[in-house]
């Protein structure tokens, strides 16, 4: 065992942790969740809620697990009578001024105050109902944040986030004693590009997202691991869906990428996933109009075109498409005497870094898989590709509804929604969007990350990698793939930087590919 490891016992379970580890983190390793409010691994320790009191042998007083460093041979007891009663009393204290408005509180169901009260709180309060509870009106903090002071337990996570992580202290603790509340200055707003994180950090329903307000109850939500498509950073997120509608995007902790946070741009970047005007069936050109057909017919039409094609072929892809889709789209035109050009376009925006976390920002490149497209040989010379498309024999467009493409050749449009320009396409194939399929992206640092399916695709829409691999198979390029895992395996075999990676290995945290990071 290395010298940097120390061994301690928590609730009878011995654990070895690195020196300097806090007891609360060591307990997590021992499988013990010490109840806490103010502690958050992404924030500086405050030690103010006093909820994580535990008994440590040979220490006269109970210690807060969040501010005590683990020491060699320490014996921690989180379930001793003293520790339990201390936590029960903290809960009682917290609840004297906390309204029991769980029925109308958005946090209900994912509220730590509810959970821990249920776990070890008192059944009834001793606070006389005649004593008034603290009351302050609801405040509008910023574009997406609402503050309900009555529910606040003053854990100060939000204040510490703004002060130490966002490094723009626009929140404060105002007043003192039981009159205290989280305050803002009337002339400033909580409009930092990363401010939305305070809503996730709030352990109770005191800070609420206006966007999510009253939208759903926590227990109605289905949660799926995903990757944010807002920019090239590739923050890990969870898509919360309710009845097949994405209603919320929350950060999913990944210490390598986004730690515990996502920016507001990413947080709000989900409405398009619920678009109603989707292509629901393959469409083919007949008599100057697009007509719905089945996949078989559509595939036959496309393969006929591709078999007969010669000369120049242009593929215009979206940098929001999965690596698998981009790969199979490329494979369609491999070999033969085709002159293939693949290109993608990146929308640019403002860059907004999160000051307290190195290498984390809302990136100017609003393309989740630009790096993946590059790895697969797609170029950024978009204008040139558009010009080439004019005289190309076949132009394949992958989910770029706004492109000004003009061609004398055959246009095949593969996408989620049908743009006006694609009305004269030879064939239109419906595909699933990112929330409706599995796949992977490569972020700007060359990290390969998987995302899972969160909702069902409308009508006959299928993942793009399925569509292209079926087409490839129809063209005699080998067996089609049946799952995203298989698709990734093919990519990993073919592309040098991804070689050796497997879908399973990626897990939901991702793995770095063997590529130099983008500058």
């Amino acid at each position, binding site marked *: 065992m290395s010298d940097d490891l120390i061994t301690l016992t928590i609730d009878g379970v011995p654990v070895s942790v690195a020196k300097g580890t806090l007891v609360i983190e060591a307990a997590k390793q021992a499988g013990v969740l010490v109840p806490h409010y103010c502690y958050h691994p992404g924030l500086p320790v405050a030690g103010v809620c006093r909820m994580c009191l535990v008994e440590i042998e040979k220490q006269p007083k109970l210690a807060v697990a969040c501010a005590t460093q683990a020491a060699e041979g320490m014996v921690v007891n989180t379930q001793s009578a003293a520790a339990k009663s201390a936590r029960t009393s903290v809960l009682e204290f917290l609840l004297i001024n906390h309204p029991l408005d769980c029925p109308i509180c958005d946090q209900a169901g994912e509220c730590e105050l509810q959970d821990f009260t249920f776990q070890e709180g008192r059944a009834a309060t001793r606070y006389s109902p005649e004593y008034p509870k603290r009351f302050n009106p609801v405040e509008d903090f910023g574009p997406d944040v609402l503050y309900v002071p009555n529910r606040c337990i003053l854990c100060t996570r939000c204040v510490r986030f703004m002060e130490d992580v966002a490094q723009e202290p626009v929140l404060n603790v105002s007043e003192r004693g039981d009159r205290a509340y989280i305050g803002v*200055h009337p002339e400033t707003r909580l409009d930092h590009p990363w401010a939305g994180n305070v809503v996730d950090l709030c352990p109770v329903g005191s800070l609420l997202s206006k966007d999510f307000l009253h939208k759903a109850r926590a227990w109605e939500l289905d949660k799926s691991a995903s990757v944010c498509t807002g920019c090239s950073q590739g923050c890990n997120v969870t898509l919360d869906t309710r009845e097949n509608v994405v209603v919320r995007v929350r950060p999913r902790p990944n210490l390598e990428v986004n730690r515990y946070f996502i920016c507001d741009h990413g947080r709000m970047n989900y409405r398009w996933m619920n678009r109603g005007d989707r292509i629901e069936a393959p469409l083919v050109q007949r008599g100057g109009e697009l007509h719905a057909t089945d996949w078989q017919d559509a595939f036959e039409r496309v393969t006929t075109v591709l078999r007969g094609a010669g000369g120049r072929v242009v593929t215009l892809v979206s940098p929001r498409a999965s690596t698998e889709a981009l790969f199979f789209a490329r494979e369609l035109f491999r070999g033969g005497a085709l002159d293939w050009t693949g290109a993608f376009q990146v929308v640019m925006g403002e860059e907004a870094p999160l000051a307290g976390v190195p290498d984390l920002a809302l990136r100017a490149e609003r393309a989740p898989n630009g790096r993946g497209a590059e790895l697969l040989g797609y170029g950024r010379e978009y204008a040139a590709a558009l010009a080439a498309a004019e005289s190309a024999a076949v132009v394949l467009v992958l989910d770029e509804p706004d492109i000004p493409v003009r061609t004398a050749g055959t246009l095949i449009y593969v996408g989620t929604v049908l743009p006006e320009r694609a009305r004269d396409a030879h064939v239109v194939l419906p595909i699933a969007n990112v929330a409706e399929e599995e796949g992977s992206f490569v972020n700007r640092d060359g990290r390969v990350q998987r995302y899972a399916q969160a909702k069902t695709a409308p009508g006959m829409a299928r993942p793009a990698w399925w569509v292209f691999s079926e087409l490839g198979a129809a063209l005699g390029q080998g067996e089609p793939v049946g799952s995203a895992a298989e698709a990734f395996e093919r990519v990993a075999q073919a592309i040098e930087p991804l070689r050796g990676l497997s879908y399973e290995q990626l897990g939901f945290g991702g793995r770095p590919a063997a590529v130099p990071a983008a500058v």
Partner: protein
Amino acid sequence: MSAGAHSSPSVGPEEYQPVFTEQMLEQLQEILARYPTKQAALLPALWLVQRARGWISDRHMAEVAEVLGLTPAYVKGVVTFYTMYHQHPVGRHFVQVCTTSPCNICGAEAVVQALLTATGAKELGATSPDGKWTVIEVECLGACGFATPVLVDDDFIESVTPEKVPEIVRKYK
């Protein structure tokens, strides 16, 4: 303390006159020299503002924040913590009477009543109709052996009894 007092009445932008102009800025520079960080000058800077304007409005907080490189919200958090900074305009004479236990047993409550009557402020924390007086109860002025101590503006008056109150009030007229 009023719990709901989230924002104090602020002066409109057109009437606002900055506190930290030439002479005050010099004073501030002197203060800044005492501390290794700019932030540390916050309490003294707020005292300067209060001395100059009588109270500290939201706009003043924003100004202090600007000169010290802080955010207005941060300054507001600090101002609300310390009870001696006025977040609202007060009377010309600000009277603080200690009513904590040691003074209480020596009759501080009678002194408070006498002060309220003599100044015409009527209510604790309210300013008298002539705008001259604001009387508040405070917790411990640190002169328990000289009950009841009263702080009128910056003058510390010891051993005040209800009988002495009218004379004190007369002195400050």
